């Protein structure tokens, strides 16, 4: 089973990841094949486990204010800021559509 161009495009939009070239796609393909080995285990009648923590107790914290008030420190990480606000682009920047892929790759 190969990764189709449509699936690739969809993944790139969702994850904002750029698989860039055929080597990248190859690698993705191999990663999927590696993970597919999980299917070889018979899991009939077994409850899925979604965390190794499933038998642990979920710790409940008291409703006290113990953090915050560190705006200056947080701002150190900001590439751009305006007064005390983080600055972000106006909306989600959409990735170019499939047809425009090549032009986009070439220009970056």
């Amino acid at each position, binding site marked *: 089973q190969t990764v189709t161009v449509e699936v690739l495009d*969809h993944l790139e*939009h*969702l994850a*904002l990841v750029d698989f860039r070239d055929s080597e990248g796609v190859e690698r993705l393909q191999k990663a999927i094949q590696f993970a597919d080995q999980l299917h070889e285990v018979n899991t009939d009648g077994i409850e899925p486990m*979604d*965390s190794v*923590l*499933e*038998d*642990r*107790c*979920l*710790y*409940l*914290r*008291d*409703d*006290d*204010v*113990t*953090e*915050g*008030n*560190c*705006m200056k420190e*947080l*701002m150190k*990480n900001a590439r751009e800021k*305006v*007064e*005390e*606000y*983080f*600055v*972000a*682009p*106006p*909306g*989600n920047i959409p990735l170019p559509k499939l047809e425009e892929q090549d032009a986009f790759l070439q220009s970056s």
Partner: protein
Amino acid sequence: WVPVVGLEIHAQISSNSKLFSGSQVQFVAPPNSLVSFFDASLPGTLPVLNRRCVEAAVMTGLALNCSVNKKSLFDRKHYFYADLPAGYQITQQRVPIAVNGSLSYSVCIDNKMSQMVTKTVRIKQIQLEQDSGKSLHDDTRSQTLVDLNRAGVGLMEVVMEPDMCCGEEAAAAVRELQLILQTLGSSQAVMAEGQLRVDANVSVHHPGEPYGVRTEVKNINSLRFLAKAVDYEIQRQIEELENGGTILNETRAFDSKLGCTVPMRDKEAKQDYRFMPEPNLPPLILYDTKSLPANMNHQQVVNIDWIHERLPDLPSVKRAKLVEQYGILPEHSFTLLNEDGLTEFFENVVTQTQMKPKKVIGWILKDLLSYLKQHSLTVKESPVSSFLLADLLNLIEKKEISSTAAKQVLSELWKGEGKTPLDIVKEKKLELIQDQKELEEICQAVIDGQENEVMAIKAGNRKVLNKLIGLVQRETQGRANPVLVKQLLEKKLSE
């Protein structure tokens, strides 16, 4: 056409700190001052669940007749947006904390409060989830300013099944939910402060046919706009379909200025949230008295039964008690609960006056409330205190002034000049005439001056008597006891 309306309501949990971190929850604060490293999604930080938020959700679930899941799970919902620093929201998609409840609410038929009908809407589920930060769009500089103060605040998402059919029902259901949340204290539910946000899902279909395509309507900031937005969207869909068009499964925003819904830009593509279990949080286990392990640390336990025992009276119970205790009408109880502080005011007046509650309620709902509304005041801001009003009503009960005169006194009291009712009565000479002889003379004078009316009454038209009573009142400037006047007139007319 059968309209179908479902609601997704996000209520901010009333707590000191956030759902998964110890930063403070507060509406107004300097930007990014209430943000912890976890809220900013810095690497190496982990979520730690706030017990108060769990209790709030359990309380709300119980109040809405839900089954509280003793084991619920947390998941990640992924999407990219500047005010969601982690790139995902921690929510409860697979197994939420409470499911399968119901909410009863009342709507008026034909806008008549005296004809109220009880309706029920099913609650699909209640889930705990994180709020996002706030984005301020600066279109001139083509940028977005992000404030993460709200990021990570605890939310209860209440999902109402599509059992409603119009804007009025939707608004009534949300109003009742608001009152319940405020009574429980689990959320202050003030829509204007973003503590209660409502998204409506609307579709239409012909009876007997399958449900139509639904649209989601967002950006609704008040109950009034909720009703408008829903009704507009229903109409829009009907018109579209009747003109041979189709309805897109899209998200629309309500434009309050234009009173219509418009498609939302950023939400055109179908979202794939790639839900996955939250790996950093084990399942949330809740206990009841039966399942409570013997030697568990108190602080780590949320006991559903313990919470159930301590639930306060819900609005519906409060209303029923008011009707039973004071003999007022159900629609009165609705109005009392609908205005913040009005029930307390009413009860305070009742304890301080000899006037029967059934009569007091008229003064509260007709005189006091209409004045407050006219001047956009809350009950707490009323220039007339319950003490003053009770004082005034006592003067009526003691037959020192008439109701009409009392209304005059009340309008003086509104000025809030610090005078007592008695001061005003004396000042404006509004005391009821106590001298029977004086009253008799006035009655006689009126009778003598109204030959035609007297003949009509003697001929059997009793209604005309009211006109004579009115004339006596005018003569005495409202200082005559109407009951006494009627008796005197009747006596004289039968002579």
